């Protein structure tokens, strides 16, 4: 009976879920897409992924230990997730030094300058990606043609993405049906047989990861479904109105970074709204901006920009979109 009793306020038990488990859950969910990337882009995908993950973790370690002088928090797994997502958002032939610069911007600037995990207003991986897109436009828009381990690394044969072909074709006055002759079939795109950033191509693998995230309750359906539904409806209206100038909704769903963005990037806890209502508004915003950029913007693809723009709206959404307070507007009887 010499036990020393702990005294603390209730509750006296905590759920087994931890930040670390959530982060590693996301890593597991990204594995099918990673496998698909390696299948399509071979050694380039491996080099890009390893470089990105290692440099993101290293940057976080160095910044927290030597600049912020706090206990490095790399074990929480968030730097690994950012590293993976950054790799997924760049072409598989991107040179190592460019990836390292991307990692320094993503973790060093977009995350740590705001105080580290939980405080960054913008998705770090996307900030890194957009920085690279603006700074290295040539390297960031050369897309290796998927041919497995024959693809090579920086010496890969490159081609255009389906969205690039669409954007260029429409600008040159071609009809959508003529452009569709030049791009892979919808089925090929679903499995990922097309040019693009290394992790975004395989919609099938990304959806498997998304189902895992939903099953493990790491994310809720609100953000991905509202983004995908908005894109479907918006592009569907355009397509029905003018099928000569606008591509069909399925094409838009399967191309570019939409699946990766909707399932993995927009659902980042830190930079997305706290309430379900807010999440739906946020998702609709991302969907609308994506379609606007894809059809009328200077870039063929707009998911990254759409998410970053809506990231900026999140504090407002959190301030004005509140959960329904119990007993506030009572309508009894």
């Amino acid at each position: 009976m010499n036990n020393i009793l702990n005294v603390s306020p209730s509750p006296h038990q905590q759920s087994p879920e931890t930040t670390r488990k959530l982060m590693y859950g996301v890593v597991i969910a990204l594995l099918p897409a990673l496998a698909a990337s390696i299948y399509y882009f071979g050694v380039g995908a491996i080099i890009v992924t390893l470089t990105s993950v290692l440099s993101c973790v290293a940057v976080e370690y160095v910044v927290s230990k030597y600049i912020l002088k706090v206990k490095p928090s790399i074990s929480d797994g968030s730097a690994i997730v950012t590293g993976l997502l950054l790799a997924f958002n760049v072409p598989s032939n991107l040179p190592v030094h460019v990836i390292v610069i991307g990692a320094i911007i993503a973790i060093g600037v977009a995350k740590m300058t705001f105080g580290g995990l939980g405080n960054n207003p913008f998705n770090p991986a996307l900030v890194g990606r957009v920085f690279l897109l603006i700074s290295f436009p040539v390297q960031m828009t050369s897309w290796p043609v998927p041919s497995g381990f024959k693809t090579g690394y920086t010496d890969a044969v490159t081609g255009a993405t389906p969205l690039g072909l669409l954007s260029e074709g429409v600008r040159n006055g071609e009809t959508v049906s003529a452009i569709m002759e030049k791009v892979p079939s919808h089925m090929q795109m679903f499995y990922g047989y097309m040019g693009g950033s290394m992790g975004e191509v395989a919609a099938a693998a990304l959806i498997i990861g998304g189902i895992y995230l939903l099953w493990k309750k790491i994310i809720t359906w609100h953000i991905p479904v509202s983004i995908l539904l908005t894109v479907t409806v918006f592009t569907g209206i355009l397509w029905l109105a003018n099928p000569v100038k606008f591509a069909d909704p399925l094409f838009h769903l399967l191309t570019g970074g939409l699946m990766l963005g909707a399932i993995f990037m927009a659902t980042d806890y830190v930079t997305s709204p706290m309430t379900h209502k807010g999440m739906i508004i946020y998702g609709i915003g991302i969907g609308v901006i994506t379609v606007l950029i894809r059809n009328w913007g200077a870039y063929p693809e707009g998911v990254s920009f759409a998410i970053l723009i809506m990231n900026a709206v999140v504090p407002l959404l959190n301030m004005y979109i509140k959960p329904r307070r119990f007993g506030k507007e009572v309508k009894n009887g």
Partner: protein
Amino acid sequence: MFKTFPQGGIHPPDNKLTVDKPIVVLPLPSQVTVPVSQHIGAPATPVVEKGEAVMTGQIIARAKGFVSANIHSPVSGKVNKIELVTDTTGYKQMAVMIDVEGDEWIETIDRTVTFVKEVAMTREQIIERCQLCGLAGMGGATFPTHIKLTVPAGKKCDLVIINGVECEPYLTSDHRLMLEKGPEVLTGTTIIMKALGVEKAIIGIEANKPDAINHLTVLSKDFKGVTVQPLKVKYPQGGEKQLIKACTGLEVPSGGLPLDVGVVVQNVGTAFAVYEAVQKNKPLIERVVTVTGKSVSNPGNFLVRIGTPVTRLIEAAGGMPDDTGKVVNGGPMMGKALAMTDVPVTKGTSGIILFPAEEAQRSEVMPCIRCGKCSSACAMGLEPYLLAAASERSMWEKAEKEKITDCMECGACSYTCPAKRPLLDYIRLGKTTVMRLARERITK
């Protein structure tokens, strides 16, 4: 068929280790310590003196005013001393200590086991009897029962809900009571209905107690107006507002009481105590307490006299395991940790849980990742992360505007937080501060 409240809620592991353990009568201790304040309201005033002989059931401290409750001697023997002792809350308060000698009950108490179904008393007599017998809510909040049975002028009550939810993990005292004292609980329900002038009563029971649901459903056919409502398992369904919402769909307004929607909620244990008081003239001198924990060798449900040291209860459950790191009075979600086990069982003690040392420590606190799980878990539709942050920064007006006073401190937010942030600690600080500031505004 299974109803629940729609918003928020969590599913902590059940851990109802003592569900199959029948209620065992605990032998009398050699000394009891009976605090004069075991209820919400003014402490009772001791009416016995040192050295005086007392009998079981005799009043030893009289209620001070309306919002208070009588305290009766749970044993017979001699008053050893009346002095300040530490109670389960950790505060010092006046208590009557009695050395136990035999077990002589006062004659007016009917100690036979015969079940009395017919309620002979009038409304006024019932309320008076509950007041005399020192009844207080047995669910943990210990609000004097006679006040809850008195409908204030201008209010109307048309439904009684009996709380058999027992949504706290580990605890099984209410469950066992429903199984073993079904007719008594139902008669107690009928008495409460009569006191409030109500035709209808619903007994809400969660689906993890199918035996209790079946048992009471069958028995309730003989009790006019009483029905059993099975509920989906979800914490905090035992919260009054959540239980009313689950059973009726009615929503108690923010800052309001159940009577604002015409409902009075009473705990199963209270219904049983009402039966004993009204039908048997027995004051509240004993209660069922679950003593449990993963390392406890003989966990069980014990019928104990008020004032029995918690140490005695733990001995009855096989002694304190070597790995014990925390002892909680009440459930794991809302109970209070005890600094020492040498404190008495009171009217509100529903369980004693012994946690092994590895579960007694909180996990390391990580930064908030803004996942929103706390808001999704909050059954009151609050934003715990925001309230905690406002409290942490002393932003009291912000906390008040965001309805911090609606928080019932169920702990679902702190439980669910993956970053293990002490959300409820900060919210409690904010809530008490906001309430104090509000009181000061009124008195100015």
